[in-house]
């Protein structure tokens, strides 16, 4: 797409950037046939420009393909009509369409992405392109207006789908009535699986945002659970389980494994202390800061371990009144 000078000057927020990128993606995803005008009015080369004027006025259109014996031979537009008016004056539009039409017709394939049409608009300065199917048969007309409308509709559909998901998720705690409702997420973590390390944390963070958590709460939980998930991957014999219990007023995160356990829990909590091997450190982990980072992100921290038996880490984040998953705070989820 062309670079827009105004866009370059403006500071773009992440949300706006997401939307612009989405438009660009859609330019490749949407097909011309999805946005083009199918129900088209056609004219013949022998029709008069007066008939074209009437057709444009009645159909409220600004252009039409010219067809002769089922073949596309030209395009006639409002601009051609204006030229005819300049030549003849009002009421004297007897000249045939053939005299004013553009016979160099640019066509696009109905199955091409709309970015192809956008490129042609930029190159040719034409206002409309004829759309043909694979058999070269005229099936529609596409204008810049069709593209804008198509993109806006697609974004609207995206937005509504996401909105609906968020809406449903963020009302979970109100829709289900019990004395104490909680949502529990569980993930099995494999040892040494560095390629997928952090996948559980990523899903947890997204779930929290969808439920309406503030970005700050989602980040604190994300960091804490990610460090804990990596600990399972780096240190355990058989991996372990990450379990997150979400309640309206608090989030409890727990990791449980069956070994090897920590010899000296107090020592393990000392900043800089680590039992990680050099190859783990080379990957950017095992600096002896993980548990400290978790502690900093949470309100309650409990680490229990028995050598040879396993380790259980349980942390809690308390939500302030304005952070809870309640109806009052749902405006945020819809932002």
């Amino acid at each position: 797409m062309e670079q827009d000078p105004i866009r370059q000057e403006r500071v773009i927020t992440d949300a706006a950037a997401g939307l612009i990128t989405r438009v660009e993606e859609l330019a490749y995803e949407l097909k011309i046939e999805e946005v083009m005008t199918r129900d088209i009015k056609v004219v013949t080369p022998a029709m008069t420009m007066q008939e074209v004027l009437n057709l444009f006025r009645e159909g409220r259109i600004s252009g039409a393909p010219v067809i002769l014996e089922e073949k596309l031979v030209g395009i006639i537009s409002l601009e051609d009509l204006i030229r005819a008016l300049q030549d003849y004056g009002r009421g004297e539009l007897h000249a045939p369409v053939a005299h004013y039409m553009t016979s160099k017709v640019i066509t696009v394939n109905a199955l091409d992405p709309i970015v192809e049409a956008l490129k042609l608009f930029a190159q040719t300065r034409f206002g409309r392109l004829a759309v043909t199917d694979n058999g070269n048969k005229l099936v529609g007309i596409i204008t810049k207006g069709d593209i804008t409308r198509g993109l806006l509709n697609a974004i609207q559909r995206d937005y509504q789908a996401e909105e609906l998901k968020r809406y449903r998720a963020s009302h979970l705690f109100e829709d289900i009535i019990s004395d104490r409702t909680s949502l529990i997420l569980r993930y099995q973590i494999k040892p040494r699986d560095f390629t997928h390390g952090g996948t559980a944390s990523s899903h947890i963070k997204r779930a929290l945002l969808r439920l309406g958590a503030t970005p700050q709460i989602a980040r604190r939980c994300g960091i804490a659970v990610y460090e804990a998930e990596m600990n399972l991957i780096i240190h355990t014999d058989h991996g372990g389980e990450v379990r997150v219990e979400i309640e309206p007023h608090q989030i409890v995160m727990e990791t449980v494994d069956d070994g090897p356990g920590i010899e000296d829990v107090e020592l393990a909590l000392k900043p800089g202390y680590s039992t990680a091997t050099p190859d783990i450190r080379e990957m950017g982990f095992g600096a002896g800061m993980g548990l400290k980072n978790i502690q900093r992100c949470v309100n309650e921290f409990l680490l229990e371990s028995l050598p040879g038996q396993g380790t259980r880490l349980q942390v809690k984040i308390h939500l302030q009144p304005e952070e809870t998953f309640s109806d009052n705070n749902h405006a945020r989820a819809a932002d």
Partner: protein
Amino acid sequence: MRLQDILSLTQAQFFGLDPAPAVVNREVRLGFGADLMSDVLRYDVAQGLMITGLVNPQIVRTAEMADAAAILIVRGKIPPPETNDLAGRVGIPIMGTEMSMFEACGRLYQAGLPPARRQDEVG
């Protein structure tokens, strides 16, 4: 500072597909350089640039958890496909420069990119 400015200041390039103009114009509000992921997580790097010499997928996960806006890889390292794939999926652009960590950070700081502060200092 926009990613476009970071590209020119550090003579860097994007990895993967040509990014959309919106990505090139993305703003970062600060910078933080580290080869230890727990160090990154200790600082407030939200909407910031994470500068590292590592290339494994965990740099993307770390950036995602910390809400970093982009990653700059120094010392001419090339990320493996799984790192680029993950970055594409979570929407975090990765750039690469031949410069050392010291030089890349120095040039960006000199050009006005502020440093990150520790999480506990930010509150």
